[in-house]
């Protein structure tokens, strides 16, 4: 499989698929839909193979053969889910769902309280100022950011407090909470932009690599191909299927 011909073929395949996806920027079109469906297909195929070897063999079949008969219990429970497809038996699947949801809920409660509640409250409870006596007198250190964080956390909680009408000081506090939220959303906004641009750079880099002579100019040739394809598709759509887009 380290054949150079296969490497070049692989490059053409990836470039073709990438450009088919990018054709969505022009409009939704058959090339994009083919690529999208093909993607679902290969992902599912990949998952079947991976779970067969990693899960079915290693986690279930071999322990079973090694004498761990208890794995049959969850396996049977798992199979009960398939009773969803039979109207008369579908209630059996409820047992499995109940066990799964019960387990998830039971596991989540103490761990959420530990890490999302106690640890976060612990990190917010910090001194706002400290006083230290030095040889020359007393030194007061203000930790203004600790105070700002405390105000922010409380204000955001007040904003999401639904038991009292937002009037007077509560209204002001809730408003402060919204302003904090907006700054945080701004940070998220900027970071999301950064993430998307990184992905674009990654693809541009790959397309640049594949446009070299080493890969028989996959990118420029396939780019031209896709453009021609899109033009043809537009023509066909206009002439043969003039009503489709109106439906």
């Amino acid at each position, binding site marked *: 499989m380290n054949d150079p011909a296969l490497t070049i073929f692989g*490059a053409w395949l*990836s470039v073709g698929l*990438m450009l088919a*996806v990018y054709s969505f920027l022009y409009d939704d079109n058959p090339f994009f*839909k*083919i690529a999208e469906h*093909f993607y*679902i*297909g*290969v*992902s*599912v*195929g*990949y998952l*079947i*193979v*991976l779970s067969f*070897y990693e*899960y079915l063999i290693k986690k279930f079949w071999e322990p079973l053969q090694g004498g761990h008969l*208890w*794995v049959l219990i969850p396996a049977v*429970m*798992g199979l009960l*889910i398939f009773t969803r497809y039979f109207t008369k038996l579908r*209630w059996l*699947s*409820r047992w499995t*769902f*109940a066990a799964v*949801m*019960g*387990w998830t809920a*039971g*596991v*989540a*409660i103490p761990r959420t309280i530990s890490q999302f509640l106690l640890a*976060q409250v612990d990190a*917010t409870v910090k001194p706002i100022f400290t006083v230290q006596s030095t040889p020359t007198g007393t030194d007061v250190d203000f930790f203004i*950011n600790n105070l700002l*964080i*405390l105000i*922010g956390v409380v204000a*955001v*909680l007040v904003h*999401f407090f639904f038991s009292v009408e937002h009037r007077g000081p509560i209204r002001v506090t809730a408003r402060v909470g919204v302003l*904090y*939220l*907006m*700054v*945080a*959303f*701004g940070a998220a*906004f*900027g970071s999301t932009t*950064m993430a*998307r641009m990184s*992905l*674009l750079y990654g*693809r541009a880099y*790959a397309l640049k690599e594949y446009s070299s002579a080493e890969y028989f100019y996959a990118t420029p040739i396939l780019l031209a191909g896709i453009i021609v394809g899109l033009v043809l598709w537009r023509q066909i759509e206009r002439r043969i299927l003039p009503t489709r887009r109106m439906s």
Partner: protein
Amino acid sequence: MNFLRQQFPLLIALVTGLVMIAQYYIAGEYSRDLGGKAADAYIIIQGIVIYLGIFSLLHSHIGKVTRLEAGWGYSIFMFLGIVLMLVAGFWSGGRLDEGTPYKWLYDNTIVPLSATLFSILAFFIASAAFRAFRARSVDATLLLTAAVIIMFCRVPWGEYLAGLISEEGGPAATRAIARWILEVPNVAATRGIILGVALGIVATSMKIIFGIERGYLGED
């Protein structure tokens, strides 16, 4: 019969939930064994759920093709993808080492497709930046201002330029604003959200254990 359909599942949820809560507060080897076995059981069930998902996906696409629904032709490409991957995967014995057909197909289909699908969002952000991101209120103005500062100060050339403009402190002074946004208002607001979400998770989980929330059981 009605008990097995209606109450018994709720009893299962109650018992599993309470046992798992109790397991957290009990130390020692037996608790560890129980926790490990229970998690293994969950993992085994989840593995089967994966096959259920695959099954229902195939089911719906087979239906599309046999009934010749709109866009059935695209479903063919989905099946093509599955078959290619299965052949390559089992041929390679599930080994993802360099040089196996499985890895070759993974590298040349899944990797480019999944990366490209998400990279097109970069273009939509650019277009929305020009056409839709408006400072239409005080809130949105604050949001956009923070976003612009973060975008400018989180890239190296932005930091460099900021260093040229600001006279004292150089890049450090300008970066300090971006750092402050991330470390103070952002931390406060997200912490508030996390605390709220935590209460929500705990409340939903309690309702599941005590049988108040039973939407997951589906209809009869």
